[in-house]
């Protein structure tokens, strides 16, 4: 019993000493907004020092001496929600890096409106370890968390259009603006399926924006381009996912409309591609198409299809949407035994201005990004710049209204017009869609690099 | 040769062997009898290292076996024809016998012993290529004993060789045990059929609910009134 008391006594005294320290440490940290130690760690968190800044005192609170000594800096919180585990990790990291870079470059340590607001970004994960992919309940939790946080002003995300379907209605109810760098499903903003898009906006007011063009446009351009290349027959393969299947559907419809014979349609999941790309390639090649269109993304093992098609003796055109226009696609397809790039000569489009037409800021973005995150400039994840651009939209809106008010910020964001973004002049229409319809065509050259090429439309 | 000193063995929390001691001398056939459920198989499993005694020690020619894993114990010369025979059903008779000699490396010796086994059990030679699982009960028992002999054991443990066999086969098996005895093989025999067991053994032990109730020369036990009453089915 004696030792027992001793232990307790020790713990008790330790507790009081520590809690006393706690009282002392918090105000000390507020006096120095940006601690050098914290800012020396750039990658993981956007503005780490902000953790030490408490919320502004409210009238009911007993005023604390240390807190009143500094000018009131109000906290504004941004949340981002992307799957940080599993197959989508690469794309999500790219987007998150874009956000971080934008905050770092466009604000002074996160301060905007002459130091009136301090912006922090919290990166949420909408995937779970058990599943290794995005999860509806987790996305719902993330959105609710942001909705409940009075400091939260803008919600960045999501990567998956399905996750957006979960998040938009929740955020819509609290009028919080949400902006995505990657959702391309048409129905999120425009009429597509019955009930879309109204069913996602219970209040009837639009709260969702995106800086990437939706799928409906790209598929049409792809089909037209094939026609322009003189193709008379095409085989369409999709990866069964929302994005890939959606764009392939649009492309197939347009191809039929402009008189390209569709030799067939095959849906192959990324996982099945790993097991059976060879037999898919035999089937596709067996119909002797002049071109193969792959609606899907690199991570769904599109490169495997290309490799197997070439192995099966297919010599025609291979084309895909922006999910294919990644350097990853070229590296993953590899080289043939005699050292040529397998991906040489494949076509892809991307819904943004051409690299050559990128504004100076866009080119600077690529070099800065490369320097900061250690990724070669020509290998930067495709969505990174959209991440940066969406952060630009939000920051511009906040700087304009200088109010900690979701409705005002939303209004300013929706009114984005001719913003000089890293993806060119950016204007959002009443649906929250980017008006940019510039599509750039790319082809892989002999050095294994995507080079721009004019999109030849059929006469 | 083989000596158990005050061995206590547990199945989980059940106290199965409550301190038994037992000695088998070289060239002897010693039998352990008892009613079913008396825990007759447990000593054999303990000797072989499949069960671990919590207390007590097991010595083979003075060498401690208690802490050794089963394969080391086999290497030191203890082999067993287990209860239920445990034939490798999907292996041929020959392969089963080869498995008996698993711990040995002398090929000529193994071949020699196999010939011996075939001499002892001519039936096995006829069935040499047949799968173990397709043999009859008696043949399986022969195979099991042959397999144990293939280890060229210093002590052979025989568990219930008569179980489930027709009387004529039982007699055959016990004839073979006698033959082995005459060849000088040391055997510890566990048997339900006490009369038969005591008839081939030099000495016997009686196990009752995990404890040694009696021990002595087989002939004496055969005439012991309590043994007679309890195990030999003679009520007078």
């Amino acid at each position, binding site marked *: 019993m004696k030792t027992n008391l001793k232990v307790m006594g020790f713990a008790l005294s330790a507790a009081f000493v520590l809690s006393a320290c706690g009282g002392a440490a918090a105000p000390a940290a507020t006096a120095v907004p940006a601690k050098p130690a914290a800012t020396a760690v750039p990658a993981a968190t956007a503005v780490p020092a902000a953790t030490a800044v408490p919320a502004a005192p409210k009238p009911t609170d007993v005023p604390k001496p240390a807190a009143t000594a500094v000018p009131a800096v109000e906290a504004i919180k941004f949340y981002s929600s992307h799957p940080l585990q599993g197959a989508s*990790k690469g794309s999500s990291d790219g987007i998150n890096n874009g956000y971080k870079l934008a905050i770092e470059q466009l604000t002074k340590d996160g301060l905007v409106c002459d130091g009136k607001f301090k912006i922090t970004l919290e990166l949420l994960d909408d995937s779970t370890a058990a599943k290794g992919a995005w999860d509806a309940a987790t996305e719902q939790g993330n959105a609710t968390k942001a909705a409940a946080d009075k400091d939260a002003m803008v919600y960045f995300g999501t990567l998956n259009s399905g996750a957006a379907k979960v998040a938009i209605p929740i955020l819509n109810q609290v009028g919080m603006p949400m902006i995505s760098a990657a959702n391309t499903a048409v129905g999120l903003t425009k009429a597509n399926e019955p009930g879309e898009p109204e069913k996602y906006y219970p209040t009837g007011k639009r709260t969702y924006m995106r800086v990437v063009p939706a799928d409906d446009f790209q598929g049409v351009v792809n089909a037209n381009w094939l026609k322009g290349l003189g193709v008379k027959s095409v085989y369409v393969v999709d990866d*069964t996912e929302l994005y890939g299947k959606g764009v392939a559907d649009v492309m197939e419809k347009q191809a039929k409309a402009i008189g390209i014979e569709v030799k067939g*349609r095959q849906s192959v999941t990324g996982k099945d591609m790993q097991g059976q790309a060879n037999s898919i390639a035999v089937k596709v090649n067996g119909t002797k198409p002049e071109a193969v269109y792959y609606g899907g993304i690199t991570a769904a093992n599109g490169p495997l299809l290309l490799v197997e098609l070439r192995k099966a003796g297919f010599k025609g055109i291979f084309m895909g949407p922006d999910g294919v226009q990644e350097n*990853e696609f070229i590296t993953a397809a590899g080289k043939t035994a005699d050292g040529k790039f397998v991906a040489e000569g494949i076509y892809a489009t991307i819904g943004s201005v051409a690299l050559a037409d990128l504004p100076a800021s866009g080119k600077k973005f690529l070099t800065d990004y490369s320097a900061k995150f250690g990724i070669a400039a020509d290998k930067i994840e495709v969505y990174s710049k959209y991440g940066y651009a969406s952060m630009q939209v939000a920051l511009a809106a906040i700087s304009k209204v200088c109010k900690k008010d979701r409705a005002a910020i939303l209004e300013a964001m929706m009114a984005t017009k001719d913003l000089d973004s890293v993806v060119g002049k950016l204007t959002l229409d009443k649906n929250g869609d980017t008006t940019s319809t510039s599509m750039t065509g790319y082809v892989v050259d002999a050095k294994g690099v995507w080079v721009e090429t004019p999109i030849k439309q059929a006469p | 040769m083989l000596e158990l000193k005050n061995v206590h063995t547990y199945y989980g929390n059940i106290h199965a062997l409550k301190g038994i001691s037992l000695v088998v001398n070289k060239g002897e056939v010693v039998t352990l009898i008892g009613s079913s459920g008396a825990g007759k198989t447990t000593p054999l499993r303990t000797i072989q290292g499949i069960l671990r005694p919590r207390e007590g020690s097991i010595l083979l020619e003075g060498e401690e076996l208690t802490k050794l894993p089963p394969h080391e114990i086999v290497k030191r010369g203890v082999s067993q024809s287990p209860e239920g025979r445990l034939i490798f059903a*999907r292996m041929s008779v020959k392969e089963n016998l080869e498995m008996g000699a698993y711990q040995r490396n002398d090929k000529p010796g193994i071949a020699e012993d196999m010939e011996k086994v075939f001499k002892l059990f001519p039936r096995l030679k006829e069935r040499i290529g047949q799968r173990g699982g397709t043999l009859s009960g008696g043949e399986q028992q022969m195979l099991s004993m042959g397999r144990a002999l293939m280890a060229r054991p210093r002590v052979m443990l025989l568990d219930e060789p008569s179980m489930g066999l027709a009387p004529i086969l039982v007699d055959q098996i016990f004839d073979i045990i006698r033959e082995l005895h005459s060849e000088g093989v040391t055997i510890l025999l566990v048997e339900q059929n006490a009369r038969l067991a005591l008839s081939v053994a030099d000495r016997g032990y009686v196990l009752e609910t995990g404890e040694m109730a009696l021990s002595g020369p087989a002939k004496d036990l055969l005439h012991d009134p309590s043994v007679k009453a309890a195990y030999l089915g003679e009520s007078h």
Partner: protein
Amino acid sequence: MDKSLAPSTAMPSFRRVGKILLPIAIIYLVLLFGQPAGLEPGRLIREILGNPTILVQQLISGLANAAIVTIIAIGYTMVYGIVEMVNFAHSSVFMLGTMVALLFMVGLSGGVRTPLWLAILAFIPAMLFCGGLNAVIERFAYRSLRKQPKIVSMIAALGMDFILQNVGLQLGSFVKLPNAFPDNQSIQWLAVLGNQAASPKAFPQVLDSVNILEPIFGPDVPLRIVPAEVMVIITAIILVFALTWFIGNTRAGKAMRAVAQNPAAAAMMGIDVDRIINLTYAIGGALAGGAAVMYGLYKGNTSWDVGFVNGLYSFTAAVVGGIGNIKGAALGALMIGVISSLSNQLLTSSDWSKALVFVILVLVLVFKPTGILGSEGGEKA
């Protein structure tokens, strides 16, 4: 339907009619509701008659896939045969094997064309690594759980699977090293790991994609066989025969069979059961390593999740063939490979091929509960 209406004693002819009508009704319903999956006999017949050579071509690709699946399946079946445990981590061991083989081939060839001998040599590190890894996992994760219900070690295996997958995923971040030091030529080959953790990573193609039938039958030959296909099939045959010989004729192989049939008796024979089980894991792992090299050379690609689908098919193959049986694994793999190739050809989505494989699995097990070549485990309860 009619059958239940008919009284059991009267009108036997009514019953007979029911016996005929019931299957017809079932077939009709299957054809009715099978349409979304592409189950349209008319179309299928016409397609098959229209282009029979493509079916032969699909047979070849099915065979090549089956070769890889067989080798992975043997790993499952051996482990299952000896400890009756589904080793969920096996597929991830295979996945890491592909990574090791990839790094070995590219690392040693230094960025230039990988020679064939180096690719063949890659079997050694991949098999050693996977075998060793599997043995280590068995020793530290599963061994103490063997006396528990099988499901406990299955969950542990699942946990291992998560860990290994994460390791595979994390390998992708090593690509940041060459990006950070663009001048350091000695680490540039790490770029083979791709730009993103999760993206597919290319294997060097060491064999030309030429039709080996062309020199013999001329350029108009309707079939096409590439050297890589011949390579995987021959390698698989060699590995299966080597393994069969090992198990049938070596001392360790016999001990493995003995432990699989009856661990208690095996222990009494002086077999160190723990060691033999460990050895089984090691051999299963080594085979996964071999399959990994085959996979890399044939498919030309790998990624962190390559284990899942191959593992699933392999395990299914092992069960269809009769688990615990090496010939069964090969037969099951062959069935699955050919069926999925053909159904890829005839149906509209790989999803349906997968569904078909599982439907066949269910049918096989319903009519032959132990798999095609399986037998009841004798004395083993």
